[in-house]
């Protein structure tokens, strides 16, 4: 290479983008910064991120943001169209739809967050154990996974909720129980590719037991592809949760769950469209945001999959 | 040089990239007569891209420019796709590296050869079938009737490449570009495939551009050799003159080949110098790439 390196003070950006990082920390931060640059260049993904930040903000500060209580009924002012007083109109009990949407964001985030936490963890555990152990353990676990995959997801969730009784908690459980198999498959595939890697053998020679190998060496490597998958699945989880709510199997009245709100407005659809339209729009915007974010994350974390 | 089939002057292929333009081929010039011309270089030297540019196969956003790109005295630079299509296959053709990937896996061998022939010669299926059998015979496949009905995954690499040659030569092109035609094959069948190709090219009086990274092979097989480095031709030599190479890169390539008659303890590592990228072209690349 060139013989006379020009020495001049580096800007922080140059430090981050350096081809020859001096420390591991610099390399890692540099990689994150590179990823961020790729992500930031994707306008749609940024749009998704902004929407989701707004959503979280809305959920956190719901009581201060909502113009009215989500439960305050006003039978005199029921089924009012959108106006200056009620921006999104009122529902059949005269409750302010905007306030209910704002409070409902908490429920949506709770459901999505919990399912997106539980399902991948179940999947990660089953998939890595199956891939790492091999043999009959692998056979049995993958057979169970296949059975769950062969099930119609929504109907299985319906049957679960019906068996356990309708409530938010059971809806979350049912969704998680139907959502884990793809993660298990993914984690198993990743495990199979790294199981025979030299550094696993090296760790084994150093005396690492199977549990330690699994937790310290295999799980961390499966995480990034799982995160991408979760990000892409979030929208699907929202839609399924809303579907359960719509069927009356999720959050129970009077909780302002978005799917249930659409169900409430269904009867009035022809004359009072806003009652059903507004919560549906909210679901659409949020799941769109998750989809955009997921696409952007995939471009950063899994460039190979992004080409498809 | 006898009359030249192909004239290339200052051919350039560029691709836009995040760090600005990437120049895959940077001003390549040569003539091709009815001869076997070897193009040698390491991977990324632009040798394959040169072949594809001649065939008009550089897809956008890639860009091809040249002062001159003539086939039989007729410019073929950036022809409209429709006219280029008429030339491809019928006048210039190409054999690629690995028949496992370059043959369509779900079409029979016979259908693929017949398609190539009928596209340019027209005619009935029967005539095309006769021609395909004839071509398979020409590449020394013994049971052509049977091979016609097989699918690509059912034949070996060596046979696949002979099928590929049969297919590409069926419409009687004047120029064949062979892009690493033997690198994916088993060592034992390489010579055979090469000699079949050589015989056909010679009998038909075609021009052959033989792209390879194997200097030894090229020097034995070709009449002339172009040495490419970083998108440019650094040296042109008659194959018999190879030992007189002057460019340090060519010398480096030659000395890094093991020789039975003059064994050395340790083969020298190929040294590359930044200055070879530009040489007499004196292109100053501004800024960092």
């Amino acid at each position, binding site marked *: 290479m060139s013989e006379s390196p020009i020495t001049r003070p580096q800007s922080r950006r140059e430090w981050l983008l350096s081809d020859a990082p001096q420390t591991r920390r610099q390399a890692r931060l540099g990689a994150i910064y590179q990823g961020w640059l790729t992500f930031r260049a994707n306008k749609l993904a940024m749009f998704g991120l902004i929407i989701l930040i707004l959503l979280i903000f809305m959920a956190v500060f719901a009581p201060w943001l909502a113009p009215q209580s989500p439960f305050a009924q006003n039978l005199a002012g029921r089924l009012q169209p959108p106006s200056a007083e009620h921006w999104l109109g009122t529902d059949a009990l005269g409750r302010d739809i905007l306030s209910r949407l704002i409070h409902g964001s908490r429920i949506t985030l709770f459901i999505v967050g919990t399912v997106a936490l539980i399902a991948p963890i179940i999947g990660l555990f089953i998939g890595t154990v199956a891939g790492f152990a091999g043999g009959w353990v692998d056979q049995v676990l993958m057979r169970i996974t296949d059975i769950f995959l062969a099930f119609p997801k929504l109907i299985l969730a319906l049957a679960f909720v019906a068996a356990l009784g309708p409530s938010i908690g059971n809806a979350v459980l049912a969704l998680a129980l139907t959502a884990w198999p793809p993660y298990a498959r993914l984690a198993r595939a990743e495990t199979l590719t790294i199981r025979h890697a030299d550094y696993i053998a090296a760790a084994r020679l150093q005396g690492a037991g199977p549990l330690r190998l699994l937790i310290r060496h295999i799980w961390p490597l499966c995480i990034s592809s799982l995160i991408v998958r979760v990000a892409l699945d979030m929208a699907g989880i929202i839609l399924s949760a809303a579907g359960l709510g719509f069927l009356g199997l999720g959050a129970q009245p009077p909780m302002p769950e978005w799917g249930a709100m659409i169900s409430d407005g269904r009867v009035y659809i022809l004359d009072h469209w806003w009652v059903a339209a507004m919560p549906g729009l909210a679901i659409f915007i949020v799941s769109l945001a998750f989809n955009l974010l997921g696409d952007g994350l995939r471009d950063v974390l899994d460039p190979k999959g992004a*080409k498809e | 040089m006898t009359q030249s089939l192909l004239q290339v002057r200052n051919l350039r292929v560029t691709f836009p990239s995040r760090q600005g333009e990437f120049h895959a081929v940077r001003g390549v010039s040569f003539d091709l007569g009815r001869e076997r011309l070897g193009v040698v270089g390491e991977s990324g030297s632009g040798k394959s891209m040169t072949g594809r540019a001649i065939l008009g196969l550089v897809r956008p956003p890639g860009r091809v420019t040249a002062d001159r790109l003539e086939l039989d005295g007729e410019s073929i630079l950036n022809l409209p796709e429709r006219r280029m*299509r008429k030339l491809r296959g019928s006048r210039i053709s190409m054999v690629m590296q690995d028949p496992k990937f370059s043959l369509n896996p779900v079409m029979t061998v016979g259908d693929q050869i017949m398609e190539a022939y009928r596209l340019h010669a027209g005619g009935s299926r029967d005539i095309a079938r006769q021609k395909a059998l004839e071509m398979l015979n020409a590449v020394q496949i013994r049971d052509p009737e049977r091979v016609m009905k097989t699918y690509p995954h*059912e034949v070996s690499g060596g046979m696949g490449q002979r099928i590929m040659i049969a297919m590409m030569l069926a419409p009687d092109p004047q120029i064949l570009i062979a892009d690493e035609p033997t690198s994916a094959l088993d060592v034992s*069948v390489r010579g055979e495939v090469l000699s079949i190709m050589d015989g056909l090219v010679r009998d038909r009086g075609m021009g052959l551009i033989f792209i390879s990274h194997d200097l030894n092979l090229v020097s034995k097989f070709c009449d002339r050799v172009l040495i490419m480095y970083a998108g440019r031709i650094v040296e042109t030599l008659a194959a018999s003159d190879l030992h007189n190479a002057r460019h340090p890169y060519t010398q480096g390539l030659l000395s890094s080949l093991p020789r039975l008659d003059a064994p050395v303890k340790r083969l020298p590592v190929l040294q590359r110098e930044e200055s070879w990228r530009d040489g007499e072209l004196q292109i100053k690349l501004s800024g960092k790439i």
Partner: protein
Amino acid sequence: MIDTNTGGQGPIPPASAPDRRAARKRRLRSIAGTVLSLALTLLGLLLVTFIIGRVMPIDPVLKVVGDRATQAQYDAAYQAMGLDQPLVVQFFRYLTEVLTGDFGRSISTGQPVIEDIKRVFPATLELATLGTLIGVSIGVPLGVIAAARRGGIIDQVARVVALVGYSMPIFWLGLMGLLLFYGILGWVGGPGRQGIIYDGMVPHVTGMILVDSLIAGDWGAFRDAFSHIILPASLLGYFSLAYISRMTRSFMLEQLSAEYITTGRVKGLSERAVIWRHAFRNISIPLVTVIALSFGSLLEGSVLTEIIFSWPGLGQYITKTLLAGDMNAVLGGTVVVGTCFIGLNLLSDLLYRVLDPRSK
């Protein structure tokens, strides 16, 4: 495999008879393996429905004998239903019952569940089939063109169509469609399968009204049924289109970067021939699986659609009986949908073998 490594110098040895027989045997064995694994999956499905049925907080005996039954009546029914037996025995009993088509009696309709399902299933099948037809006939060409002109206008449109499809709650879109096309524009029939005047007028043959009215030659009934089915079918079709076009595009991009495509171009083939004659043949094989999967998911996805459109199909049946705590009906419906899923998997697996020369 013929002639793997000899370079093909010698003549290809004609596949001898024992060779061919062995190949056929291998093929049969792999098909048998597939069937066996699907049978295992089916068994698992039944096990899960069985467990759900036992976990249910609803007392199945009470549902049968009613609240006013005496303890003796209750015990008699308890024994008659085999609930005093060990769970394993109960499961085998359930298994034999289900395999002979006996899902028990529905409490909400008073009919054997299998009869109910026979009645409602054709409605769902009709809807899902039309939806898949719409999804395939638009989704496949859309995906192919999007891949061929990557980054072009069609590609952008396909991207937006898919993105919206992945983000839209189906039941909400259905409601909005009903509002617009039925409530405001009046272009389509409203909820239900038929207008009142045509109800029960067409002789029942297949249970699919579009087909039955054609068989009967009753154009009025056909037009009426069509105006009712087109909106929910388009809705399902849209979601299937979003999925199919995305998958088609991604398969196509993969094929278009394959080397044999360059071969086609070197031959001088037109771009259209390269895409449709060469690449499309290759993607049609995995597409079969995608279409089968999408059809299966429409059978299931029709649950919400059927509710919106008051479509008297399996999805509505399952939901209604579910809310009524009618577990026999719910589990029967679940088993039927699950079996369809598994059957579609088997079908696409077999088609794969037929279509792909490499699998022979």
